[in-house]
């Protein structure tokens, strides 16, 4: 399978990438690691006429302690998240989950920015960043803006990124983590999650987010409310499917996905230390 023809432009800087996006508008797609986009292009589900390669913007490839948050450059690869001592200490949920994205070959090339911007509800990292209450920093022709991750996902493969904006950084609040868990249920090790759950208990509150339970990555707001009101893990897990819109596919029916969501939320809460 070979993608449809496109013009290839290699951006030498973030500013150049934004200028190219401004010039080409909706016709263009950004290429980072390419591990979400290229499969779609090979299947001709995506046929951008211009591909703007930002994969060499090494100044957007970093993991830094920025005081009250950890700053992660959008071009940071999964392998770098997985092996970062700083993340293992400050955001263990993220480094652990990054080690479960795809397989080693994918993790060598795929980036956190690419994964978040692709807005696939079946991806692991969007739910992880949702559970941790991260912030997305984007840059456009009129400068930089910050978007709370809870406001970032709009629809299937659709985010709040404007066509002329580039994601530059992901900010993860530095939390006093009491417990965390990442539950990914799939049939083969490298597969997408049939359902996944990311949970983190920190600073007296609990964040829980769901993978593949709707058209976007979802916060499990019912579960979070239940925990806040003093529910046990088992009681809170009963509310796992509130506001979800699971789809059926070759791997699972809606009823099975909802069952998995309840089971995995309970496991995630228990592993995070909730009784």
């Amino acid at each position, binding site marked *: *399978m070979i993608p449809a023809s496109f013009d*290839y432009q290699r951006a030498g800087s973030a500013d150049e990438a934004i200028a190219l996006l401004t010039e080409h508008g909706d016709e263009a797609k950004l290429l980072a690691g390419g591990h979400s986009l290229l499969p779609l292009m*090979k299947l001709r589900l995506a046929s951008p006429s211009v591909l703007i390669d930002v994969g060499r913007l090494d100044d957007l490839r970093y993991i830094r302690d920025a005081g009250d948050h950890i700053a992660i450059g959008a071009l940071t690869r999964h392998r770098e998240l997985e092996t970062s001592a700083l993340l293992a200490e400050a955001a263990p949920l993220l480094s652990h989950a990054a080690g479960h994205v795809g397989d080693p*070959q994918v993790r060598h090339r795929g980036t956190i920015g690419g994964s978040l911007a692709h807005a696939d509800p079946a991806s692991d990292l969007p739910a992880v960043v949702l559970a941790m209450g991260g912030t997305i920093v984007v840059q456009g022709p009129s400068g930089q803006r910050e978007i709370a991750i809870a406001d970032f996902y709009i629809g299937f493969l659709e985010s709040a990124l404007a066509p002329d904006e580039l994601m530059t950084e992901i900010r993860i609040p530095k939390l006093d983590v009491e417990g965390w868990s990442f539950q990914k249920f799939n049939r083969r090790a490298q597969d997408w999650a049939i359902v996944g759950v990311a949970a983190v208990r920190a600073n007296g509150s609990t964040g829980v987010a769901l993978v593949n339970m709707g058209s976007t990555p979802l916060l499990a707001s019912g579960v979070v409310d239940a925990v806040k009101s003093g529910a046990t893990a088992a009681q809170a897990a009963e509310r796992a499917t509130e506001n979800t819109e699971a789809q059926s596919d070759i791997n699972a029916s809606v009823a099975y996905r909802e069952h998995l969501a309840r089971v995995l939320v309970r496991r995630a809460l228990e592993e995070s230390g909730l009784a």
Partner: protein
Amino acid sequence: MEITMTVNGVVQTADIEPRTLLVYFLRENVGLTGTNIGCDTSSCGACTIHVDGESAKSCTLLAVQADGCSVTTIEGLADGDTMHPMQQAFQENHGLQCGYCTPGMVMAAVSLLDENPDPTEQEVRLGLEGNLCRCTGYHNIVKSVLACAAEQSGATK
């Protein structure tokens, strides 16, 4: 678009369409057909090569993305007539049946040991999660990788 990359130590320059996938560049432009195309959807790992020393699936990379990089394929592992220790270990432990997945398995396994020179059996199995063997010959593949790790750690001690 003109690209230049080092493949198995030899500089290769070609004028290609931007949509050319790295695996096709390697097989058709450079003529190295040891890298197989299996699923063509980045699931099976048959097309695994190294880009700047790290395993990657060449069916899901554009050749232009590897422009300026150093690429190693299965043909670049052996030193003349002397097989790479991983190839030797696959031979000695019968780490293959039909052989189709083997180039990718060997390349993934070499990258795995670069990152983790002394893996447990479980770490080898997890480390090869991106490579499928249609013959289900995993047992001897894992045995081969563990044998190579033992051999190499013995050699460096």
